[in-house]
């Protein structure tokens, strides 16, 4: 029996987001959406996390930080890119310091579109992340 679907712990990292998506991520924890119903915890610690939720694009200064957070997470782990910027760089894509979407530096499993991404679609993305988590666990087990 696998418990990953019942207890996905999330690490939220803000790349170079305008904070629009971050507010929507935090909205998921409020009484209206209450993702803790599904066992989700916003951990703030990569060593406890199963799902890395990244908002905003990657810039020159945070490449190492994103990679470091990803490396610190124990297997199995998945990455969910939340919002247009995390998926592709968004409207900042052509800025001088922007590398592009998160998938330029770490492998991304689920893409959540939107500017800003709606809480419903973020929760949907996390559910997709859980499915990817299960797949990875089966491969490693």
């Amino acid at each position: 029996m696998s418990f990953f679907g019942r207890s996905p712990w999330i690490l939220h990292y803000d790349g170079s987001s305008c904070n629009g998506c971050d507010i929507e991520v935090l909205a998921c924890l409020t009484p209206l959406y209450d993702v803790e119903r599904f066992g989700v915890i916003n951990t703030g610690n990569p060593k406890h996390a199963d799902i890395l939720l990244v908002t905003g694009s990657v810039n020159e200064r945070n490449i190492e930080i994103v990679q470091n957070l990803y490396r610190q997470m124990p297997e199995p782990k998945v990455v969910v890119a939340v919002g247009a910027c995390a998926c592709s760089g968004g409207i900042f894509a052509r800025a001088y310091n922007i590398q592009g979407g998160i998938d330029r530096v770490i492998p991304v499993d689920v893409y959540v579109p939107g500017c800003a991404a709606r809480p419903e679609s973020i929760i949907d993305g996390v559910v997709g992340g859980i499915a990817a988590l299960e797949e990875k666990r089966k491969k490693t087990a």
Partner: protein
Amino acid sequence: MSPAIYGLLFLALGPLFGGLLAGADRIVSARMQGRVGPPLLQPFYDVGKLFQKQTRQVNPIAEPLLLAHVGYMAACGALLLSGTDLIFTAFIFALAALLLVLAAGSANSPFSFTGAERELVVLLASEPFFILMMVAVCKVTGVSTFGAVLASPQLVAVQLPGVVLAFLLVATIKLRKSPFDISVSHHPHQELVSGLTSDMSGRLLAYVELAHWYETALLCAFMVLLFNWSVPLGVAAFLAAYGLEIMVDNATSRMKWQLLLRSTWAATLLLCGGNILALFLIGR
């Protein structure tokens, strides 16, 4: 039934009690915040998942230390129920807590180390109370084992109201509730990340949880010592106290360690020590 069987029952049912209470805690906390909250069995799902997750050890000594932490915490409850001397169990309780400090300190990362140092302060604040409490219970009942205290005709809580009040305060520390959760933080984006456990992953974190369930069950057994007329009475008193702790947890923010030390020592000395002194003077 022989007392040893109660000890074995504690080993088997202690984590079940602690885990269910942790699940109920999360639901009640969520309801207080206007949310629905996770299922009752959520803590068991979490620990199950942690066992399935990869474990990364920063220092290989952490695992034996954490296993000993679980072992001593479980043994402490089992020894208490199977009739070992009360004061002796208070010392084992302190030793079990110390092993967690060593495990966290072994990681050598700033968050973990700060958590370990703060946990030492927390131990300094709480342990004198438990030793004094056991002394007080022994003094009032004239016996020094769990079974004998339960068989004692007088209700300990009536003679030791100060100790009961101080227990409520110190239980906040042991249940890792705000404002006394200075060594851990269960909420993200706070100054300590997760304090003691920030470098524990996978099954290491599961051991910490398991030990905490035993610890909760042990605190319940301590409460039964104070409300010694019957076990259901003691458990009911503990559940009421736990409800109070959840409310305090949701209504307060974290204290600084100096205030924690001052307030718990003041409570231990004034309430607990004063209570013993008053009994001594009355009984003379």
